[in-house]
């Protein structure tokens, strides 16, 4: 079980969180009339990274906030976390 540093609450055990998939996947707004390739990329294409991976977590049994975590997928080491909208 990982220890996840919630940027709002501090480090908490993984069972307080839910996983939210790859971070920084840009969702094209409908009004921009996204081309099919771009929309498909948003929907279906993910990096499946080996190594440092930016991913979303939600502190669902805590502050309920979504935030981002940099995790090494080969070691599970969590390097840092930051709020949505931050880098």
């Amino acid at each position, binding site marked *: 079980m990982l220890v996840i540093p919630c940027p709002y609450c501090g480090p908490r055990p993984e069972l307080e969180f839910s996983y939210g998939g790859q971070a920084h996947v840009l969702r094209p707004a*409908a009004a921009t009339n996204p081309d099919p390739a771009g*929309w498909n990329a948003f929907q279906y294409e993910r990096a499946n990274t080996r190594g440092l991976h930016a991913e979303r977590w*939600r502190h*669902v049994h805590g502050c*309920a906030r979504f935030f981002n975590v940099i995790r090494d997928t080969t070691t599970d080491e969590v390097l840092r976390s930051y709020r*949505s909208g931050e880098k």
Partner: protein
Amino acid sequence: MSGRWRLAAGGNDLDRSRPIRFEFDGRAYQGLQGDTLAAALLANGVHLVGRSFKYHRPRGIVAAGPEDPNALVTVRRDAARTTPNLNAGQVELYEGLVASSQNRWPSLRFDVGRVNDLLSRFIPSGFYYKTFMWPRTAWHRLYEPRIRAAAGLGMAPAEADPDCYAQRYGHCDVLIVGAGPAGIAAALTAARSGARVLLCDEQPQCGGSVRAERAARIEGKPAAEWLRDAMQELAQAREVTVLSRTTAFAYLPHNMVALSERLTDHLAAPPPGKPRERLWQVRARQVILATGAIERPLVFPGNDLPGVMLAGAARSFLHRHGVLPGNRVALLTAHDESYGTALDLKNAGVDIVGLADLRPRASGALVEAARRAGVPIRAATTAIGTRGNLRISAVGLSALDADGSVSGAPEWVDCDALLVSGGYTPSVHLHSQARGKLRWDGAAQSFVPAAAGQPCRSIGACSGLTGAALAEVFSQAAAAACAALEACGIAARPASFTTSDDMTSGGSWLGALPLPGAMRGGKAFVDWQNDVTAADLALAVREGFRSIEHIKRYTTTGMATDQGKTSNLNALAIAAQQLGRPIPEVGLTTFRMPYLPVGFGGLAGYARGELFAPLRKTPMYDWAAARGAVFEPVAMWQRARYFPQSGEDMHQAVARECQCVRRTCGLFDASTLGKIEVAGPDAVEFMNRMYVNSWNSLQVGRCRYGILLRDDGFVYDDGVVARIAADRLHVTTTTGGAPRVLGMMEDYLQTEWPDLKVWLTSTTEQWAVIAVQGPQARAVLEDLVGQADISAAALPHMAMTRGLVCGVPAMIFRVSFTGELGYEINVPADYGAEVWNAVWQAGQAHGMCAYGTETMHVLRAEKGYIIVGQDTDGTMTPDDAGLGWAVGKSKSEFIGMVSLRKPALRDPDRKQLVGLLTADPRHVLEEGSQIAATPGQRPPMRLVGHVTSSYYSPVLGRSIALAVVSGGRARHGQTLYVPTPRGETAVTVTQPVFYDPKGERLNA
């Protein structure tokens, strides 16, 4: 007979004042308090404890600890408390213990399966894969059950486990795994520095190799005395927890280690209610691994006869239990410590008939001491075989030539036990589970820990210090403890431990022993438990396997319950030799958790029975239960499915309930519907972006049926949404969908549209929802709603108002999932039962019935109302479901909007929701049935859709079904064909609305 194998004195683990009676395979024996089952059996001269997995060969006790590959037994307390596959070296003796051997029929001494051994040339490695391939169906029906029965590993009890199991979390500065000399020294160092320490050991008593120490003195005391004092010091230290009988079986990410603590298995009469095991999940800032090393057997023909035992195991039995492995003992070794074992046994009165050393020469204090004592030593000598039936009677020793080959004839030396040692393999399991690297130590001939994968350190024998002087182990342990403390930011107080008279030892042999040319191919076992021989490994390489992971899977070496603890390195060495590559190049197979088998009871812990999953009950649950409702689980809710009156089955009850709702009225508990309050100045705009509908035009006090898609354009959830204030919407969801809809809303709100000022609150459990449905609904409620005007004019279909119902503040929704005039009264949950009861009382004069979810399903299907997840399957657009009208036409954004533009999602041949009427009105189709466009097809058939909902409609007096059919809306009136087990059924495609298509009743 007893007494010949038990010394009159000695045995560090024993309480000689407490004899213990026990039973093995139906025979009564006596042991002593402090014995393991293995020790007690040996004390009674019993070596034969099991039959091997594949060949059913007789097998004996090989090791003293849990690494033993053979001695698996079943321990039975009663029919439910019967545990198979326990290791006799780990089973502690208690008064009245009943154990039995496994994998033999009809008896251990005479086993019919032994015929496999005689046929063994026909069952080489990969035999199962090669032979039982055809026909494929026979594998499941015929071969696998037979193989499993023949290769049994003991039987799990059929009864439910009556014991309870505890679980807890642990937190510490330093977790130390293994309370041998290294672990204890590290624990003392950390404890004296004030750190929070958790020390665990799998044995009943801490001490590890100190308990079998013969001469060394520590801190000026005999080893046993030092051990007692050290454990007392740790017991008194405030921040130290010592757990014995506790196995660290898994090293998980972020320095979490899972421990299994056995609490009552060693007791003759476990106190009722006391947990049998406790599963610990320990989060340690630093971990110190002091897990020791495991002695390797030697690989030569006949090395599996009972009586062949690891030399270190014999020494452990001698010093800890006063037990002798035999009376005429031979040794075959490549490690110096065996000389000490020979010496100790000789001093205990055992006749040492020979000590054969594979090495050309051996030296050192132990060797010299043995030589001086007259142990008959043969250097450069190997074993080419053993004799004996159920127990070794002789070993064939042959001299090794200068080039290491065997040429001369063997000399057969009579013995009743043969002690073997190929040296020690450091137990790097946990280090490897923690993703630490390993390094091949050529001098030690073993893999030792290199860079750690997590904040952990290995000390003592598991770090490669096998056979090292205690002084070296202690100084390494103290230094590691100090380093761990510093990493925790704790000022370490370095400790040192003086030792004297401790001896070093060394030596190693890897792989098969050399054999004369004529003898190649004899059964030299590498993996006892899975019956893998050196020849099997050679065959795998000849057949083209190159990767050690593939060789392992093909031969099954190291894949039994012992996970190859004694065998993996020998298997690797043999494979490497066959491949002509050095061992480190071939590499090790992956170390996986668990280190030792762990019972399911401990893993499940409290999560059993009522605590397995939360059971959600509505405020009206007790009312329904008291009226004999039959419940069904929906998500985690218990929902009343129907209310049978005396003698009714479900169909009769549902028929009555359906008729009642359509004729007069019915009362339904809709409290489980998911409810989310969307509030804030941007609430409407948020809903515009989330749901397909347009919400701007929804007036306060009005409701609308909302559809939520995912961004792939497919229906995700639906429900009625009410605007209960200008800045506030009451959103209902499906019963099962509430949590994921709220999660999805939060996701988009927080990460896509953080600019919106909206707050989301789950209100599912705040409201009890009392649905009154049917032509008499208004008449029932009129007297209960006080000032609230619920007339058709004031409260039309899809309107809501507030008021006092039975004096309780309520939201009254004019909504219907039945197609009848209907209301859903929302009152605070605490008033739910009271208001429900009042409505029920008022309803009696109007012929009201209570109805359940089954009737609700029939009524809604008669109206063609879909249930998301039943009539949709995650691949349906709103248009597919006949709900295209709900999609706002002039919206700039909603979830799934872009996907709905895809040509594939606008294809007129997509499956669309339709109604089906069977030619035979009594025939109720099976839900999930496939639908063909043309009759009489043979498989593979061309299918155009499937049935999603199917019921008998009591009101219509016939069956009805909803289905999704390719291009279905263009097929109305067509005949399609549903293959059923009883033949093909013709069906007519219709509108999906079977009852009151104009909605006159709804709007009454």
